[in-house]
């Protein structure tokens, strides 16, 4: 049996899904968190039922890609759990009506039930059940309240005979139901609501945004550097380095295994940046430099996501983003892209038009460095002085803006206007925050560690076979002539296709000047996307869009790299 979890955006379907199936999924407090469907299993008596977390939709007449996915899914389901936001019954019932008109059994979960009490909303559940003709169960997915009852009543799900109606008739029916089952009493505003209202006004909204942004950077840096200085570096320097020295002595310097596992000794010592062995640099890049920043970035992002602040940033930035061919909501895929480009590009599905999706995805893959790349840039370029890190970030930001302006003028069509629900501010749940952080960190390690270790193995072999020399000679006019980098850096640019963090690591082993590091970092960030982003880009933009985006990347990175080389 296939059970579909459906409902309006941001009613808590993903938390609900995790509760039902035990499968961890990313849940946040903004409409459009889920853009793909996730599957899990739920034991119903003797049977294992498949549960699908469907992207949220306001209507079965889709208006965005994510909503299209939702409507398509409905064709293959056997039963729908309609998750309804109990604090906003009227609008949510419109979708319920559409679902009831279809020939599929429905059970309704009145989620966020705990909030109805302090919002002065009273819903007569028994009556609602009677009028709708399907089971209705109040739930609080975040705490798990009501979930057992819901599961025990799934078999009662029904498909009452409802005649197809026009939209007006449907709304009229919703209106009649609301009159019968809901009473709302007046109550005072909470401080969270006052703060919510303040943040969508120019003043003090802009001030709040600047403070939130500054605080985010400070916390990310503080936590990231803290982890590096107090946890990772001591572990690597005091514990792992001696182990590696022993291993190196045991294997004998110059032996093949030593070159592969430990790498070159620099001044008779293991150097985690430059040795380039699988067990030295191969572990140090993912665990020693990148992991601390992945943890700190996703910790802060989780807070921003779950508080409900992100849609407010979208409102503040909307006018500016329109100049770049996007509307304000594009800030959400862009921010996700700062963690990893892959979920960032996927999240462009919350945008309505193909044009906008193309612009945002292209800008993400060119101008938005992922957390792994940023950690390496901070680690490596930061060692030369903070002004150089500032040049890298400043350049990428300017590129993002200028390219946005150009794309807005050249790509056909126009970008639609902003239309989003602003969720109420909520205090993030520690359980959901921790779960998200864990998933994202684990996701990074699973993806990065094998590729970095394998990559270093392959690089060592290719160096031994002088393969890179051929490529380097071939690319020398561009790499040395235009970008002013030694031809050895070509290998790093090629490896950037696998993983950008590893590629920056390779630049680090070349003893470049500070300016060359800046040029190399910028070109790596903008140049070809890493293989994982490349695959999603191809999937989301189709072949033509992907080729266009890739062409833009190559041209833009060479132009910007050459300019930087001339200026610096």
């Amino acid at each position, binding site marked *: 049996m296939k059970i579909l979890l459906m409902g309006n955006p941001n009613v808590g379907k993903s938390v609900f899904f995790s509760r039902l199936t035990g499968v961890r999924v990313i849940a946040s407090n903004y409409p459009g968190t889920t853009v793909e469907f996730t599957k899990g299993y739920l034991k119903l008596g003797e049977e294992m039922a498949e549960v699908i977390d469907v992207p949220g939709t306001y209507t079965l007449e889709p208006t965005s890609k994510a909503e299209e996915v939702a409507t398509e899914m409905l064709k293959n389901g056997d039963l729908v759990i309609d998750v309804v936001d109990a604090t906003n019954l009227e*609008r949510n019932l*419109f979708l319920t009506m559409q679902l009831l008109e279809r020939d599929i059994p429905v059970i309704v979960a009145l989620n966020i039930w705990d909030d109805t009490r302090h919002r002065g909303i009273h819903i007569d559940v028994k009556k609602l059940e009677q009028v709708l003709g399907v089971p209705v169960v109040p739930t609080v997915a975040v705490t798990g309240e009501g979930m057992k009852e819901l599961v025990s009543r799934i078999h009662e799900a029904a498909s009452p005979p409802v005649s197809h109606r026009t939209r007006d008739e449907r709304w009229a029916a919703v209106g009649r139901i609301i009159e019968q089952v809901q009473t709302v009493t007046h109550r005072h505003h909470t401080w969270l609501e006052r703060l919510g209202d303040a943040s*969508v006004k120019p003043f003090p909204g802009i001030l709040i945004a600047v403070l939130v942004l500054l605080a985010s950077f400070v916390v990310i840096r503080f936590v990231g550097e803290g982890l590096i200085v107090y946890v990772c570096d001591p572990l690597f320097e005091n514990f792992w380095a001696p182990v590696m020295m022993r291993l190196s002595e045991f294997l004998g310097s110059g032996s093949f295994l030593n070159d592969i596992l430990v790498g070159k000794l620099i001044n008779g010592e293991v150097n985690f940046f430059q040795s380039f062995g699988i067990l030295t640099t191969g572990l140090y890049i993912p665990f020693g430099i990148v992991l601390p920043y992945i943890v700190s970035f996703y910790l802060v992002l989780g807070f921003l996501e779950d508080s409900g602040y992100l849609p407010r940033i979208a409102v503040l930035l909307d006018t500016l983003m329109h100049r770049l061919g996007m509307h304000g909501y594009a800030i959400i895929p862009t921010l996700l892209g700062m963690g990893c480009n892959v979920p960032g590009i996927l999240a462009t599905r919350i945008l309505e038009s193909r044009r906008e999706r193309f612009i945002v995805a292209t800008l993400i893959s060119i101008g938005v460095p992922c957390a792994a790349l940023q950690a390496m840039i901070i680690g490596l370029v930061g060692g030369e002085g903070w002004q150089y890190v500032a040049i890298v970030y400043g350049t990428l930001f300017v590129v993002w803006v200028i390219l946005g302006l150009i794309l807005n003028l050249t790509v056909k069509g126009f970008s639609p206007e902003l*239309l989003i629900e602003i969720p109420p501010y909520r205090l993030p749940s520690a359980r959901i925050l921790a779960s998200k952080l864990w998933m994202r960190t684990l996701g990074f390690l699973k993806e990065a560690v094998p590729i970095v270790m394998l990559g270093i193995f392959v690089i060592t072999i290719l160096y031994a076979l002088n393969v890179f020399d051929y490529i380097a000679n071939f690319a020398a006019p561009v790499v040395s002539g235009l970008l002013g980098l030694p031809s050895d850096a070509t290998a790093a640019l090629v490896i950037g296709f696998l993983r950008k963090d590893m590629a920056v690591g390779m630049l680090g082993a070349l003893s470049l000047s500070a300016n060359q590091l800046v040029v190399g970092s910028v070109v790596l960030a903008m140049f070809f996307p890493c293989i994982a982003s490349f695959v999603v880009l191809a999937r989301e933009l189709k072949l033509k869009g992907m080729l266009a985006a890739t062409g833009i990347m190559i041209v833009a990175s060479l132009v910007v790299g050459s300019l930087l080389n001339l200026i610096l």
Partner: protein
Amino acid sequence: MTFDRQTTITQMRTGEKGRIIEIAGGHGLTRRLEAMGIRSGKKITKVGSMLMRGPVTIQVDGVQVAIGFGMARRILVELESK
């Protein structure tokens, strides 16, 4: 409660209340707004608007929705008289 003066939600002042009388747009716009609970007859409160023709935020049935300026000026309301 009586209503008088007609205007659009872009011209309402922050904190003002009114009732939607018409969405002067095509079928697509009406449908999208409707699905989010913004339709004729609904009482709304303006929560705020951004500078330079930025989005307008209104509250309908306890939910806040931000609407791009071009769409927002197609939403006609009659203001609630004091």
